[in-house]
């Protein structure tokens, strides 16, 4: 018998960098008072790739994600998403345009069940007016059933059926992270921003999460940008890596290139001055 299991090669290697640019960041600078969080950083994210942003503590990684999803407004520079230069926007507008994110410290509705949390990710897609939603009848009910089906597919995808009814506050940390990913996926985003998806996880949970991230990329074709500290994970998962240090871009390239870059090594190990 001759069966080859080569999903990566057969899938035309979406990570080969052939994809068009989905988001490009040009000469962004962000400062809070006298503190420069980001200075003159430019990079792009291509369609379908997994893009990692790494750097030592305080390098400006999370600030960069906050700029991308409109939470912070840079003093200088432009961002273009899907080819259009973006004006000053608020996070919910970014969400409407198809940018979803998870947070470094889980930001779920702790008292609500897993299911309700994920359903909340669909709220932007609900069209029925307030009246029908309030009485949960007619168009609102039909719509809810359809949304619920999509949510159930995500629950199935991330294998969290057993916690469907559990309030997320009672869940283990690793599972909360998974629920947060589920909620972000429920938005069916074009660009998914993951802020340290594996922080505080044990090895097994990390492996699970890595598999889910790869599956999301393969199955839904979602473009993913992630911040992560676990270098093994970053090198295995990502197609291209952006390295920040003190708010400045010090390297950008494939994992292998970045690993060999002297500036990166210095930033991580420190240099004697």
């Amino acid at each position, binding site marked *: *018998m*001759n*069966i*080859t*299991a*080569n*999903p990566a090669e*057969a*899938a035309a290697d979406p990570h080969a960098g052939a994809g068009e640019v989905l988001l490009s960041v040009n000469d962004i600078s962000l400062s809070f008072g006298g503190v420069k969080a980001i200075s003159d950083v430019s990079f792009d994210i291509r369609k379908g790739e997994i893009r990692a942003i790494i750097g030592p503590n305080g390098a400006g990684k999370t600030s960069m994600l906050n700029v991308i999803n409109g939470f912070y407004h840079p003093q200088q520079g432009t961002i273009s998403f899907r080819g259009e230069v973006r004006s000053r926007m608020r996070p919910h507008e970014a969400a409407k345009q198809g940018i979803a994110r998870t947070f470094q410290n889980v930001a779920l509705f702790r008292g609500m069940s897993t299911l309700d949390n994920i359903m909340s990710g669909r709220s932007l897609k609900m069209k029925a007016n307030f009246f029908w939603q309030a009485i949960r009848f007619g168009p609102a009910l039909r719509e809810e059933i359809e949304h*619920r*089906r999509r949510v*159930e*597919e995500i*629950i*199935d*995808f991330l*294998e969290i*059926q*057993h916690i*469907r*009814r559990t309030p997320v506050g009672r869940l283990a940390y690793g599972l909360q992270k998974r629920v947060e990913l589920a909620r972000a996926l429920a938005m069916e985003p074009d660009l998914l921003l993951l802020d340290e998806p594996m922080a505080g996880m044990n090895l097994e949970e990390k492996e699970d999460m890595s598999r889910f991230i790869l*599956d999301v990329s*393969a*199955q839904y074709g979602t473009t993913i940008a992630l911040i992560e500290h676990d270098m093994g994970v970053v090198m295995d998962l990502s197609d291209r890596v952006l390295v920040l240090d003190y708010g400045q871009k010090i390297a950008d390239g494939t994992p292998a290139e970045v690993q060999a870059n002297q500036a990166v090594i210095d930033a991580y190990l420190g240099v004697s001055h």
Partner: protein
Amino acid sequence: MAEARGQEQCEDTFPKLLLRNAKIFGANTAIREKDLGIWQSWTWAQVLEEIRPYSIGLKTLGVKRGDTVAVIGTNRPRLYWTFAAVQALGAVPVPVYADSVAEELAYVLEHAGVGLAVCEDQEQVDKVLSKSDDLPALKRIVYDEPRGLRDYDHTHLHSFEWVQEEGRKAMAADPGLEARWLEEIDKGKGEDIAVILYTSGTTGRPKGVMLNYDNLVISARNGNAFENLTEDELVIAYLPLAWVGDHVFSYAQSLEAGFCVCCPESMETIEFDRREIAPTYFFAPPAIFEGLLTAIMVRMDDAGWLKRRMFDYFLAVAERVGEKILNAEPVSFLDRIRYMLGNFFVYGPLRNRMGMLNAKVVYTAGEAIGPKIFSFFRSLGINLKQLYGQTEASVYVTIQPNGEIFPDTVGRPAPDVEIKITDDGEVLYRSPGVFVAYYKNDEATKETKTEDGWVHTGDAGFITREGHLKIIDRAKDVGRLNDGSRFAPKYVENLLKFFPDVQEVVAFGHERDYCTVFVNINLTSVGNWAERNNIVYASYQELAGHPKVYDMIERHIRQVNRELAAEPEMAGSQIRRFLVLHKELDADDGELTRTLKVRRRIINERYAELIEALYDGSTEKHVATEVTFEDGRKGVLEATLTIRDIAPEIEPELREAAE
């Protein structure tokens, strides 16, 4: 319906039963699966419509009479359908444990000469592929769940839907095909091999137990008749497909009686799924009942004052009269009222919580269940019973009949089963369910099955006064005391281990004058007790050596001795001396296996001095034991252990005679 069922004797294979069910129970639900949060169901007629094109599709892929087809995965409708689809072609399904590692899987596939493997998902497909070089006979793989498999090369790999589609195309192209498929089913006979089940042997390679249709259909029919199971039952299928119990409960009996099988959403959701389904017929190993009991107790600790009071009060009522009511014994009117109230406020909600609200009969088997746990569930009104079975017997050897439940026996011989005990105490049985042979292993068949059909169980046991079988130990572990009486270490150990204070016990007595034991205390349980009784201790060792702990263990042993004395076969094994070990037996020190079973040989070597001390009459012994810490460092633990004597109890009848 009665006439239709009257003809059932001619349906001697599962595909024939399937055709019958599609005809007479066509609109009844045959199988359910929870998917995307909703129970999806298929009626018997729909199941036939699913299986027919699938089976014909498999035929176009080359599956023919006498072939073997592996079925690898968890309980999903399509895998159950695979059994019938394969059997309809006269081929033999070989279910494989879904959690077996690639090597074990490859061994079974290779040994059974499997030409086609039906896998649940990518995980199983990957396992098979990783070993495909060692499996020259394997030509094709079919999978159920497509996730992750999209980009695999599909030359020899097919989805379930694709196979069905091939079948439909073939049927459309050749109108006579369906008739020939039905003829093929008609050719099936009772003595054809229905399935090969590989036993997960603890020693050596697994053996393939060949069961024919007569074995399974007759056993299933007897089992259904014994418990009065009809087409209205609901079961939840959650135990491994490759295990004979699931094959009989969720496949054979379902087809025979026409009842509905429910497949859970995932392995983690079984508790919820069971509650939603409320099966009427349910099976679980003792560990599940232990888990349920613990979960209830933990939750009750967090409950409010009123609920706790109610729970405690009604549980006491249930303990007093619950089992009697279940056994239809006389109970005072007032107690009946109390029990009814309890049923409303406590027992009913608890049964509901556990998914046993509608349970007609619940079986437990596999190993001994603690009598307290057993009685707890029965007192809540759950008809929990013990069953003793084997793969080689198509499950049934003995069952506890309604109204004759003794927690320490496994019941009477099941219908059509004969039992005999050899002079060595080994249990033998003969029944219509007795397997044909081990696949490609005549030597093992000869060792296990005699010329005239008796099967050696490898278990030692005896028949009690009530005519029930009592299993005491593995036959090879049973020894003799110097006075010639039988000594079954595990039997003695289990009696003592049922006390929550006791963690582990090792019994000695083979070729000795009397029985003695090492005891490990349970630190949680005894620690709690110490706290309540103001006993201060700094370490396990200190607590274990405390005279009051010795007193407590002595009381437990006296209780065990009374139980042993009441059993003439076992009276000689009463515990005469004991000591509480200064350390917990530990897998890191090689004293236990990784599955926490005692390694007798190692214990005999490591503690030879202590064993001698148990028999030389000394009351104290100083020992130094090497221990291995978790990080691999070694140390030495020194202690002076006390050894206590216990006077034996007298058998009740002798005592009466003496008075």
